[in-house]
């Protein structure tokens, strides 16, 4: 038996859980390749037209592996926080895939995840798997427990400051945890706001974190923060947003504004994302109040890489020059000239 896991959407957040889970059940898994142009094109071909880019990309990933597996694992993500929900597109995702990707109709495993926390290990979500994969209740419980533990270890890496891609590499044993990530003193620190499936998909974000690292910038993302810190920073709001991950981003955004270490915020958003246009506007309006620069980078299937490069460079230059003018010592590695002739 083979189960496919598309490398899109929440893959970057829950893969360690899913992988451990299926391995414990002795089910072979097949993960689609990192996003390529071909996957994007297939995704566009096989998804409903007006949907956001990450959903299109995900569809392409499903298409890539559908013929090689008995099932594709597409959990129906409903909630991972009390009274908050996933963006509606997530809730409808299994159905959408079922009818748009050829061959997917009877192959989708979609346990319904309706949790009150980020932990998704409650056995009651996974009843459907027992009959379809032929596993006992006891096996299910044991596998979930293991998976939850692996996932918590992985989350701990993020909170130590590892960039998510590094944390995943460490989880997979591809990389040994070197000395813990440290922040370069005196350098520019940027808070990046965006869903894991935007920021860590090399195609969607055009490797924005790498671009920033090349510019010698420290990067902070929401998954490095403690859940409580995120929640606390939007406590003042009379009403939360409906969407879980959007709330996390909004909370992280306020946290970045309040954290004196953070010099500026870059929001990475995909074209056609409803929730993001909301949090983007809210945070943009706060930018003046906190006197911290905020920039939105909106990416669609046609965004040119050089345009992104120009904007990111200009943003970092702006902050670096301001920092220098603010009396940061010239000895520290601050070069307002950035990457000179190296390209």
């Amino acid at each position, binding site marked *: 038996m083979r189960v496919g896991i598309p490398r899109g959407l929440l893959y970057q957040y829950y893969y360690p859980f899913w992988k451990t889970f299926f391995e414990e059940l002795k089910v072979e898994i097949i993960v689609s390749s990192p996003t390529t*142009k071909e996957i994007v094109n297939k995704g566009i071909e096989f998804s409903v037209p007006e949907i956001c880019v990450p959903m299109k990309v995900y569809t392409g990933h499903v298409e890539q592996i559908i013929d090689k597996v008995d099932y594709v694992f597409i959990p129906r993500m409903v909630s991972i926080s009390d009274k908050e929900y996933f963006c509606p597109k997530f809730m409808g995702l299994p159905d959408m895939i079922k009818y748009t990707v050829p061959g997917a109709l009877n192959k989708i495993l979609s346990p319904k995840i309706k949790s009150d926390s980020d932990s998704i290990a409650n056995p009651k979500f996974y009843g459907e798997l027992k009959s379809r994969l032929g596993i006992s209740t006891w096996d299910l419980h044991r596998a979930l427990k293991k998976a939850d533990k692996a996932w918590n270890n992985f989350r701990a890496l993020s909170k130590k400051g590892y960039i998510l891609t590094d944390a995943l590499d460490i989880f997979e044993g591809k990389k040994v945890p070197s000395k813990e990530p440290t922040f370069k003193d005196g350098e520019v620190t940027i808070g990046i706001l965006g869903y894991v499936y935007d920021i860590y998909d090399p195609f969607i974000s055009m490797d924005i974190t790498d671009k920033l690292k090349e510019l010698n910038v420290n990067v902070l993302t929401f998954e490095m923060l403690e859940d409580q810190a995120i929640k606390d920073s939007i406590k003042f709001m009379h009403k939360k947003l409906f969407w879980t991950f959007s709330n996390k981003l909004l909370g992280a955004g306020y946290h970045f504004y309040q954290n004196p270490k953070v010099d500026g915020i870059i929001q990475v958003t995909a074209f056609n994302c409803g929730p993001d246009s909301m949090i983007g506007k809210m945070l943009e309006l706060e930018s003046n109040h906190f006197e911290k620069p905020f920039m939105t980078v909106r990416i669609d299937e046609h965004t040119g890489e050089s345009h992104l490069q*120009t*904007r990111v*460079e200009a943003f970092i*230059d702006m902050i670096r020059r301001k920092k220098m003018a603010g009396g940061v010592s010239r000895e520290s590695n601050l070069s307002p*000239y950035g990457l000179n*002739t190296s*390209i």
Partner: protein
Amino acid sequence: MDKVYLGIDVGSVSTNVVAIDENNRVLSKQYIRTNGQPLESVKTGIKKLKNDIDGKYKVAGVGTTGSGRQLVGIMIGADVIKNEITAHATATINYVPSANTIFEIGGQDSKIIFLDKGLITDFAMNTVCAAGTGSFLDHQAERLGIPIQQFGDYALRAQRKVRIAGRCTVFAESDMISKQQFGFSKEEIINGLCEALVRNYINNLGRGKKIRPPYVFQGGVAANAGIRAAFEKELGEQVTVPEYFDVMGALGSAILSKEYVEHTGHTTKFRGFEAADIEFTPSSFECSGCSNLCEVIKVEINGETAAMWGDKCAKWTNSVKSI
């Protein structure tokens, strides 16, 4: 010999080359149409500039900017390769130190840059929509049969006001045609177009931002007095067009190269004016290393690979660095 600093701005429409002295005074400025051949246009620009300054000055630093900045930076031996926002603002801060807002409208794109006490505080760029750029005006001038150079004067002669929908080039064009049929004169139509462009620009780029005077208007389109007047009318304030409005990007990169050389004490990497005669061969190929099928750009100098980029995995880029 006195020192000069060169600045080169390679855009898709024009290539500008300037030389400044140590006090940022402009010694030479060249404006060349790019015509899809950035390397050729830079060579032409450099040769012309050489006539103005060679023998009298020594090149102490070179900066490049614009969409072709990397390719040209390699060819020429640039000390600083810088994005357009920083380059433009650097020039403005030097020549109009009091500026708080920069409107930059070029042939293919437009930007707005917000400054405070000589530092950039915010910016926005538009590269997708043609409605707010010079190419849109060029196109309309052609349609109306008026040389673009006279566009501004026509606008200023308008007697009546006419509102043209400027949201999008397609609408603007059809709206213009119908207004013409209503009997508005060419002057009035052109004035309406200028106002539409400005409205569109401010709505797109300035949305939700505080636009504070003093205003500076630069980029090729700043030559158009009609647009400038439309800005002034829309904002109710004077708008300054700096003397070298059409080469501000190039000036900024020259200034940046000067600051860099002075700050680091490095000697320039400039390959000399002979660089204009070296054969640079840019080419591109589609890598089949994986299904990303990147379009990789390669530049060769005398048959040797000097630089490569465009690959997502950096395997080509790095292959050159290790040589």
